[in-house]
């Protein structure tokens, strides 16, 4: 090819409408006769509902209807969990859309008011009188499994939601014969995802046709349609789910929530469109949270620093119910990647999923992999300390050597490609590691505490082969789809089953197609997010959209090219075998003047008056791509921090991310994903954390208390990259949406602990707030 737009950092095509306020989000949808729903939520973490008195609310101004669990019971099926990991005794406890007997977290729905206006609905909510018998709460997943702990579900003794064990090699032998063992207890605190757009749903039911349309701030409208069928019973072909502009999700808009189903129920009851949009306070209580593990982890090694075994016991909170993908996160997306970039022959994960009286936990950027990377990289640093080695040296001694086409690891998965030492070398050289260590030593002499954190990570994403999805209990396919449609004038629509919501695929997919078929990016529109217009697909999460959906676009384009060749041969009166294609032109080999552009072909295919015998009119092709494997991006991140011992303040001085996601379609978008990811991971290390009291009340109930990173709290983030293509897909691309979050939390954490080393501090719980650091330094317990 002469000119490739693949690899060029063109501006995101989605930005002008977002920046100028012309985008349409779910809450912007307004329909004739639309009514507004507001949901009454439990103020208690755990309580029995004695009675619900809705009479005052029903007679309040503007109120159309009030429904409770008694109304939805038997009409709406329970909200299902779509990922049931096998052989793990998963307790798929019923999750009613509206609680009828028991509420199990602050925010559990107990009633819904539908009114002529949002304000009237909110006012009427206060008039609903619920008589509760409060029950004891339990917020810590390890505590929830102890004898005598409050029980959430009859069918889940000891609150055990599942027990998943996976291993490779002989871990117990590795530990009993180990020369060195290091151990740590890690609390992965609960996090609140905080997408800038709160969740929203507009449901409209047409009784005459039996059609249900649902606008939903969803990352995966096709899965939403499927679940809407399961919950409402409306057949799938009569349901249309539209995800219009979606203002971020970070995984939190992957699950299908009770709230959307309640909106559907209300519309079906009332025969009117019903809108529900959460407030930010509701977002904090009723949109899923992330992480929330208590982990006991240990690493076995030789005195030379060669790692021989890794073993964990993890209590992973599920919250009150099993959310859509909940069981897969601390298991498949966590345990399988334990060995990271290291050659560790013996690995074992022993994971308990546990019900607690808190907001359900589900996919949050990185989902399972930040936790895995954290525990591994923390243990490697502890090993280095134990052996008196530089942490980088220990990493070097264990890195898997470069491989281009598959590497089997103990947990039974096969990494696609990797060159871990390359990113490590690039990172160390860029930050001048040796010089940093010298500076650190100098500063320590004057009681200034600088710390360096270095992380080598590799992660599993680009979900994924459908066979594997089935084998690990995921109730959906994980292939992707694209339909390319040429219009007579040569412009193109691409219809995709993925559902981007900020990641920039309207730009990168157009870049892929532009290269494949020689069409200008401006002549391409990418259509997504509507189950009626797009082909079946499984959505945007798990860094899969480009690695799976982008490949589908390329494959569909190649079908178009094949048809174009045949049509060009006909028009140029040449044999098809003699037609060559380059840069949007089909020409006869040896005589490039005899040619047809893709636009000529599109016009003829649409007018269709001069087609070869038997060829169908139109220029349209679909491809469905099921990847043979996941992708395994990797890299090295380096953080430098300063810690002020007098007040415990941490200053993030610099941050470097060296990532390898294979060939980059648009390096500016890649850098953007890395920046955002790094910042979100920094949030977990330094500021964020859902704090509950013993009664299960969320103390960090708003942005006044839950500290999100802001620009001035961060240094310039530097990004570099290496390019190791994935052998598994024709574009060689790997996911990049989550790597920043996966690597940065532990990188910053290790940097802080490195800074505190001379002060004797070896452990801190996240987030590393000033007081915690100060207490550890001054040993005030």
């Amino acid at each position, binding site marked *: 090819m002469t000119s490739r737009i693949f690899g060029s950092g063109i501006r995101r095509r989605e930005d002008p409408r977002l920046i100028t306020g012309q985008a349409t989000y779910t809450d912007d949808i307004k329909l004739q006769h639309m009514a507004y729903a507001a949901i009454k939520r439990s103020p208690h973490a755990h309580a029995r509902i004695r009675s619900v008195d809705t009479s005052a609310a029903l007679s309040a101004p503007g109120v159309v209807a009030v429904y409770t669990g008694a109304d939805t019971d038997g009409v709406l099926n329970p909200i299902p969990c779509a990922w049931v990991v096998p052989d793990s005794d998963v307790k798929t406890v019923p999750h009613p859309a509206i609680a009828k007997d028991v509420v199990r977290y602050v925010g559990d729905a107990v009633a819904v008011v539908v009114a002529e206006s949002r304000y009237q609905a*909110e006012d009427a909510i206060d008039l609903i009188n619920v008589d509760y018998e409060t029950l004891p709460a339990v917020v810590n997943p390890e505590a929830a499994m102890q004898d005598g702990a409050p029980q959430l579900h009859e069918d889940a003794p000891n609150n055990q939601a599942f027990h998943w064990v996976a291993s490779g090699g002989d871990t117990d032998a590795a530990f009993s014969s180990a020369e060195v063992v290091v151990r740590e207890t890690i609390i992965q605190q609960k996090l609140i995802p905080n997408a800038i757009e709160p969740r929203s749903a507009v449901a409209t039911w047409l009784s005459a046709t039996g059609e249900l349309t649902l606008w939903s701030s969803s990352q995966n409208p096709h899965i939403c349609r499927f679940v809407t069928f399961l919950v409402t019973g409306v057949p799938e072909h009569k349901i249309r789910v539209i995800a219009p502009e979606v203002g971020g999700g970070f995984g939190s808009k992957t699950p299908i929530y009770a709230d959307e189903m309640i909106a559907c129920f209300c519309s079906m009851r009332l025969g009117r469109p019903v809108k529900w949009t959460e407030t930010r306070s509701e977002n904090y209580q009723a949109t899923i949270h992330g992480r929330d593990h208590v982990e006991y982890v240990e690493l076995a090694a030789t005195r030379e620093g060669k790692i021989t075994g890794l073993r964990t016991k993890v209590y992973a909170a599920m919250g009150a119910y099993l959310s859509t993908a909940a069981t897969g996160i601390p298991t498949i997306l966590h345990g399988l990647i334990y060995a990271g970039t290291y050659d560790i022959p013996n690995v074992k994960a022993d994971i308990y999923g546990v019900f607690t009286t808190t907001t359900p936990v589900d996919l949050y950027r990185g989902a399972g992999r930040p936790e895995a990377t954290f525990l591994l990289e923390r243990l490697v640093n502890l090993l280095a300390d134990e052996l008196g080695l530089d942490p980088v040296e220990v990493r070097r001694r264990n890195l898997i050597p470069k491989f281009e086409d598959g590497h089997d690891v103990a947990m039974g998965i096969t990494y696609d490609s990797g060159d871990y030492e390359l990113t490590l070398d690039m990172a160390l050289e860029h930050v001048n590691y040796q010089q940093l260590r010298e500076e650190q030593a100098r500063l320590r002499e004057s009681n200034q505490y600088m710390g360096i954190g270095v992380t080598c990570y590799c992660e599993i994403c680009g979900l994924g082969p459908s066979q594997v999805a089935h084998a690990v209990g995921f109730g959906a396919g994980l292939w992707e789809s694209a339909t390319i449609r040429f219009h007579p004038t040569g412009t193109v629509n691409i219809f995709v089953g993925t559902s981007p919501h900020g990641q920039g695929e309207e730009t990168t997919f157009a870049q892929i197609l532009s290269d494949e078929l020689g069409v200008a990016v401006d002549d391409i529109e990418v259509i997504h997010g509507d189950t009626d217009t797009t082909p079946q697909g499984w959505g945007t999460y798990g860094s899969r959209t480009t690695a799976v959906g982008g490949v589908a676009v390329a494959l569909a384009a190649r079908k178009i090219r094949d048809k174009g060749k045949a049509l060009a041969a006909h028009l140029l009166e040449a044999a098809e075998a003699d037609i060559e294609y380059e840069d949007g032109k089909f020409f006869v080999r040896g005589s490039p003047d005899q040619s047809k552009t893709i636009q000529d072909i599109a016009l003829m295919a649409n007018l269709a008056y001069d087609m070869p015998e038997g060829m169908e009119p139109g220029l349209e092709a679909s491809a469905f791509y099921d990847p043979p494997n996941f992708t395994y991006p990797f890299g090295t991140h380096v953080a430098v921090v300063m810690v002020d011992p007098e*007040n415990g303040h941490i200053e993030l001085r610099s941050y470097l991310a060296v990532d390898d996601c294979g060939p980059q379609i648009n390096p500016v978008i890649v850098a953007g994903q890395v920046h955002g990811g790094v910042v979100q991971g920094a949030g977990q290390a330094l500021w964020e954390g859902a704090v509950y009291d013993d009664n299960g009340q969320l103390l960090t109930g708003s942005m*006044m*208390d839950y*500290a*999100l990173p802001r620009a001035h*709290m961060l240094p310039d983030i530097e990004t570099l990259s290496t390019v190791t293509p994935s052998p598994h897909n024709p574009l060689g691309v790997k996911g990049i949406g989550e790597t920043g979050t996966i690597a940065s939390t532990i990188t910053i954490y290790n940097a802080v602990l490195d800074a505190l080393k001379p002060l004797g501090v070896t452990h801190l719980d996240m987030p590393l707030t000033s*007081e915690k650091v*100060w207490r550890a330094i001054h040993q005030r317990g």
Partner: protein
Amino acid sequence: MYAAEFDYHKASSVAEAIQMLGQYPDAKLLAGGHSLLPMLKMRLANPTALIDIGGISELKGITVNDGTVTIGALTTHQEIAASQDIQNACMVVAEAAEGIGDPQVRNRGTIGGNVVHSDPASDWPTVLTALNARFVIQGPGGITHRATRTVNASDFFKGLFETDLKENEVLTAIEVPRLNSNQLAEYAKMAHPASFYAVVGASVVITVENDRCTAASIAVGGMVPNPIRASSVESALVGQQLNAESVRAAADLVANDLSGSLMGDFYASADYRKAMAAVETRHALMHAIGLAHH
């Protein structure tokens, strides 16, 4: 985040606002709305009516004369931060304003609303206490009080979300004594990472003559609902030559002024706040005497 129903009235003068306060018993004055509206939306406050004083021009603006800087109650934090007059007469006030919240908060929030709200995490109470500011209050007048009165900072702040403001009174202005050329003033705060409100704040005003401190006025916020005057630190400083050692020794004495039970929460415990009171006091003093940089 939807407020319960309320009536809305717009006052065009202070007199009208006072008259409306009398007329609508459960009403609240609305200035920038940055403390009041969140309370309404969380349904922590449910006034029957709001009286919008936002359009009253006599409550706005900054004037400097002789010894006093007068700041209208309705002046926004941003206007204060940007005011050349304030920067000349009392730089610490401009700097404190600049450190409040974020641009949205500074553009809407007013100094009057801030002090009347009397939030223990606010910056103004601490800064204005150290500066010995006076609060100008206008009311309907009557047997018990005059129509216009002026209250010292130490009498104005009366507890958690409480001030000396009586029923149907409006705060019209804040008078800050102009700093002399031999006075140094600084404010140092530990900002909460979520809201940027002050977890701990220390404000210092020191007078230096012939290299020695001759007077000191120091207030610390974030300990109890209202600012505390750090009199132990003040008296330790007076007569001293100011340097890193004397400042540290004096600042450490702040603990003596923090008796009784202190505030604490899951972000910052009472113990930590107490220790940070000394740190922030020292920071403010070091900045004031030019031994530290911003």
